């Protein structure tokens, strides 16, 4: 762990969240929704950023959300997240997905497998939820592609308890049109219910 991370992670309620998905899955949108929900929750400092540079549909992309009770001064990129959220479990084969994830942090994966069966070793907690299953049964899709970016927020709330469902709901209502709100909220609630947690001892 780096010095700045040690410095900041000793602060309570400070979250550095890194999102991994594929271009088109909505990782960046989800990073922004979470930042907004956290602000509504009462956190003074929130930031949401894409990984800088070009993005392509289908290619691995990342994004980040920072959440803090105080105004955030850090502008450099997230190096040691305490939460990593993976929208597509096939990305787990890339080392950079769990790179820097701090001890005792959370790895949250969209997968039908229980955490133990992910075959990932590390000194962090693991949460899994079959958000794809939830969203496809609800018919939550954009241009024929099931989108799990909002649903996975349910798993985030379940694992970290950093933000309440009410704030997530408000953020969803701000961002989506009336017709889209219900299905997204249902996806989040259902994913919350089915999230499986595996905490390190």
């Amino acid at each position, binding site marked *: 762990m*780096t*010095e*700045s991370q040690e410095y*900041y992670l000793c602060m309570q309620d400070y979250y550095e969240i890194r999102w991994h998905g594929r271009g088109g899955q909505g990782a960046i949108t989800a990073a922004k929704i979470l930042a907004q929900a956290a*602000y509504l929750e009462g956190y003074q400092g*929130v930031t949401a*950023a*894409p990984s800088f540079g070009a993005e392509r549909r289908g290619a691995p992309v990342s994004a980040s959300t920072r959440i803090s009770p105080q105004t955030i001064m*850090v502008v*450099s990129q997230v190096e040691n997240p305490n939460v990593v959220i993976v929208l597509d479990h096939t990305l787990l084969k890339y080392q950079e997905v769990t790179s820097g994830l701090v001890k005792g942090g959370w790895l949250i994966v969209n997968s039908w497998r229980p955490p133990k069966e992910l075959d990932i070793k590390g000194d962090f907690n693991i949460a899994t939820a079959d958000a794809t299953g939830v969203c496809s049964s609800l018919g939550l899709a954009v241009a024929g592609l099931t989108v799990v970016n909002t649903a996975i927020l349910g798993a985030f709330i379940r694992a970290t308890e950093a933000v309440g469902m009410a704030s997530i709901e408000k953020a969803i209502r701000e961002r989506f049109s009336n017709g889209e709100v219900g299905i997204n909220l249902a996806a989040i609630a259902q994913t919350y219910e089915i999230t499986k947690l595996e905490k390190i001892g």
Partner: protein
Amino acid sequence: MIFVSKKKTRKASTWILDGNHAAAQGAKLSRVQVIAAYPITPQSPVTETLSEFVERRELGAQYIAVESEHSALAVCTSASMVGARTFTATSAHGLAYMHEMLHWAAGARLPVVLACVNRAIGAPWSVLNDQQDSISQRDTGWIQIYARNNQEILDSIIQAYKIAESVYIPVMVCYDGYILSHTEMPVDVPTQEDVDRFLPQYKPHTILDPANPKNYNLVTLANPRVNAEGVLCHGYMELRYLLQEALQNSRETITTVGREFGELFGRSYARMFWEDRLDDADIIIVAMGSLAMEAIVAADMLREAGHKVGILGLRVFRPFPKSDVVQALEKARLVVVFDKNISYGIEGATCSEIKSALYGSPARAVIRNFIVGLGGRDVKARELVDAVNKSLLSLKEGVLNKEYPEWICAI
């Protein structure tokens, strides 16, 4: 760009905005009348958003699509000459392409405002952040303001109009590409009513008017010369003197406007730079733009280790706040200047300014210069800490000022 909550204390709303949307909101609240721009990464969302405002009639401006950045600023310059409040935004190669018109806008003393979303310049190609683009335009006669966060982007654009229209100098509001332009954070968006009170409708001193035809910016001879009406007119050099004089005097306007802004909106911009813990500091970090935020974290860490560290975050680079900088740095024994630009063959541009300001003053600080963050290279607080520690160590070893800057990179 999402509405979040109404605050009771001020009549503003807090939105979670990225830097580009903050810039677009700033231009909209300033009631700009003519917008001309050409898309370029990472600036494009600024003008896309403004074109949507115009399309939805939320902003009563003319949006003029052009074929290049040179034309964009030519349109703004011309529109400004007939008395419109104008706005454009660009980055990197776009700003370089505007270079000639930058001189033209400043030389013609037009209150144009430009948002520069700082991006590295090729070759080699890069879309990522550094400040080489706006620093390369340092000598065009524009006022340059650098924002540390998205709130400052919005606030600076509104202030920029008030400054530009008082001193008749164009203003460039610069902010870091991606680091601010594409990063969302809470921003207080003032009401139109409050902004109207701060920045009244533009009263142009119309220069070109079909009812009163005139020539303007003609070939101007070296020496003053009597015109057709027998009046002695300035030569080229006198006009240049007046531009320099206006830049020198603009310091007072910039700080007054910043203070007035603070009185109305609760965020004061009464200084040309941001100070953090300078009171007891004997080590001072100098940085400009978002890096001055990261430096706060570095100073926290260095203070924790027992060093008396403060920060001077340059906000206005042109005009350069010489005497204030001297005062701020007077007590320091070490000044570490971080530059996201390089004036090839010498050093970082802000370092040169700091050295030049301190010459002849009682300040005796040793100055170190580090080149950082070029082409989007991430700059971490711990790297700033390492640079300060390294400087302290070499100082202990008796190394005073170095001839050339050090680089935080792999070589």
